[in-house]
């Protein structure tokens, strides 16, 4: 029956991630952003606490945890630095391509391609990729991907899912946000297809998990924006009282928190659906869309509450505004998400508001 208590295991996981985020990521926020990568000691600390390979099966050396665990960890890490959270996870959402196909060979190839330190996998979706006429090679062009390098690509072309480990070109970009993860324009030029599979239901679930991955990073960024700007508003005085006590700002802060809480519940429900093997595509798409919608309010409002200080790099609000906007553009962004959620609503109206 309805229960929002995370339980001991998830609570411990969240605490572990929060501690690492506060001790290792937050103090190096700007350092990682400037370097466009995460410092090696931080990577070591990440691996040491057991957060690497969170969703990898136990027989592959992972923790074998599910979507709820992922979204909870992602939120905690991203509350300190979403770019660093991305940089620390070599698989990113590309892992779901392999996991949802349930083909051990896929996973072996992906793990093999990511064996070098700092290696990253990328996810291509949304019609960016074209398969060559002979069906053995693929071309693709992605304007921005939040990684400095890509050693493997999982690409979705129609109902087909491809694994590419060679012929990947990355052109460095400044990146609007998530700079700690690096940024590149990604090209596949007649890249050989290492593996391919047609598995529409697997693709749908992989896409759902990918969206929850991004959505949970957004939650972290937005949570920090809410917390930081609220704290500032309680300390900063104007016209004889804390600015938070002017009703205009008090209501704005209230609406920001409501937007965050509501989006988080949608993300958790969708992740729970994934873990329960229930239909999850529409729920995950809606959750991602709602996080993006929340970010349109919270990102700029966080800066607004700090006024001129919000605009300056001395405070993390400008970073939160950039990062939240960038995350909302990833994986097809808002339009692709509402397209999928809308399709489910129209095709099966009961599903969108049905109870599990």
């Amino acid at each position, binding site marked *: 029956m309805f229960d929002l208590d995370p339980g001991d295991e998830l609570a411990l996981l969240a605490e572990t991630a929060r501690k690492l985020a506060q001790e290792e990521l937050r103090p190096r926020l700007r350092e990682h952003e400037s370097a466009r990568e995460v410092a090696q000691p931080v990577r070591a600390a990440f691996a040491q606490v057991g957060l690497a390979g969170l969703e990898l099966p136990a027989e592959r050396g992972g923790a074998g945890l599910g979507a709820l665990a992922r979204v909870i960890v992602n939120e905690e890490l991203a509350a300190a630095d979403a770019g660093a959270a991305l940089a620390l996870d070599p698989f990113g959402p590309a892992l779901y391509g392999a996991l949802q196909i349930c083909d051990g060979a896929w996973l072996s190839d992906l793990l093999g391609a990511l064996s070098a330190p700092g290696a990253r996998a990328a996810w291509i979706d949304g019609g960016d990729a074209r398969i060559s006429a002979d069906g053995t090679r693929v071309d693709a062009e992605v304007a921005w991907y939040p990684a400095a390098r890509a050693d493997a690509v999982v690409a979705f072309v129609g109902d087909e899912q491809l694994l590419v480990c060679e012929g990947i070109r990355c052109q460095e970009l400044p990146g609007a946000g998530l700079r700690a993860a690096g940024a590149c324009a990604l090209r596949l030029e007649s890249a050989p297809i290492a593996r391919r599979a047609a598995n529409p239901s697997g693709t749908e679930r992989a896409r759902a998990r990918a969206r929850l991955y991004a959505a949970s990073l957004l939650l972290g960024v937005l949570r920090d924006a809410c917390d930081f700007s609220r704290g500032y508003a309680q300390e900063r005085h104007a016209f004889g009282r804390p600015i938070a006590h002017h009703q205009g700002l008090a*209501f704005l802060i209230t609406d920001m928190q409501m937007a965050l809480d509501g989006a988080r519940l949608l993300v958790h429900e969708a992740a729970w659906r994934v873990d329960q093997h229930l239909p999850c595509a529409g729920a995950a798409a809606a959750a991602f869309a709602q996080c993006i919608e929340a970010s349109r309010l919270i990102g700029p409002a966080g800066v607004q509450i700090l006024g001129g200080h919000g605009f300056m790099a001395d405070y993390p609000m400008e970073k939160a505004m950039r990062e939240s906007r960038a995350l909302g553009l990833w994986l097809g962004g808002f339009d692709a998400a509402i397209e999928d959620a809308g399709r489910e609503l129209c095709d099966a109206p009961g599903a969108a508001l049905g109870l599990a």
Partner: protein
Amino acid sequence: MIDFRIDERTRERLADAREWGRSAMRPAGLEADRLSAPLPEGHPYFAKFIERGGGRTRWPGPAGAKRERTSVVETLLLLEELAYWDRGVTVADPGPSLPETNVLAMGTEEQKERYLGPFLAPDRPRWACFAMTEPGAGSDAAAIKTSARKDGDGWILNGAKCFIGGASRADWILVQAVVGGESGRGAQRSFFVERGTPGLGRFKIEKKMGLRAYESTSFTLQDCLIPAANLLGGEERYESSAGFKTAMRTFNAGRPIIAANAVGMGRAALDEALAFARESGLLHRDRVRDRLEAMARKLRMARLVCLRAGWLADRERPNITEASMAKALAAGVAQEATALGMELLGATGARGDHLIEKLYRDVKAMDIVEGTGQVQRVIIARNLVGLPR
């Protein structure tokens, strides 16, 4: 462990509520709306409601066995479903309704027997109601002026109440009043005022924009003498600010209920809008589908926020902020859903005979009763940033 599953018993009760709503509530609500008047006390709907076991108290009786408790989460889901079919009718339904929680929490055993006893197995539709709102005190419940003065072995009540659901047909009204010539929270007490008590009168049933199935009534208390025993909980229960807190306990339980009602109404508007768009060939248009999707998504979110408030209540954890969030969010989303429905209907919406048009009028009240959206934000802000009172 995090779990969003709804259990089998709740599913069964939801299915039952759905059938009752479809077959009885919606027709009754449409009838009242068309006639622009509350369903009369003798309406066959109420008799059927009692027949199927409605209108009962949760009080087990003087020697009754404890009944299986319905969780707040389950209650919210049921009330969402019932409001889907007609929220006005849910308020019109007979029963001890809003004041029951207060009586159960604070009433003496004698009071429970006298006031809840008739609701154990009602011989006819019976109503009770709670009277807080006054012409000069709505969301600011601490500002009520109705007074109670001790007079020998009784209390004399004077004041005016307004927008009270079902007051003219209630067997008794739980009236909130201030004592000792004071005002504010600490001075508030609750009093049982029985039907026919001299001084209780001038009932005026308001004409409303929506939710017409139940009566919203104004009345006055003019030198209304009631026995001392009618003070809820008895004299000794009232210390410091307990009186006001009792009333606010109702409000805290009430906000998620209103939120659940709003979600149900929003769902009804969404389903009607979807059906209309499908029949009119509008669903293939991106702009239509995108807006419907946004509504579905926000209703889904509002439901979860609402259930969170209920889940906290079930665990007896503080839920003031969450309850207000649920109320503020759900009422706004439901209004958006009905407004979107009207836009999709176009001129058809202006005809005045479409369910969405009724829902559009009905749902506005959800952002007003139990504290407006603005008051909810004040409450949330007090908790989030210490907004001064």
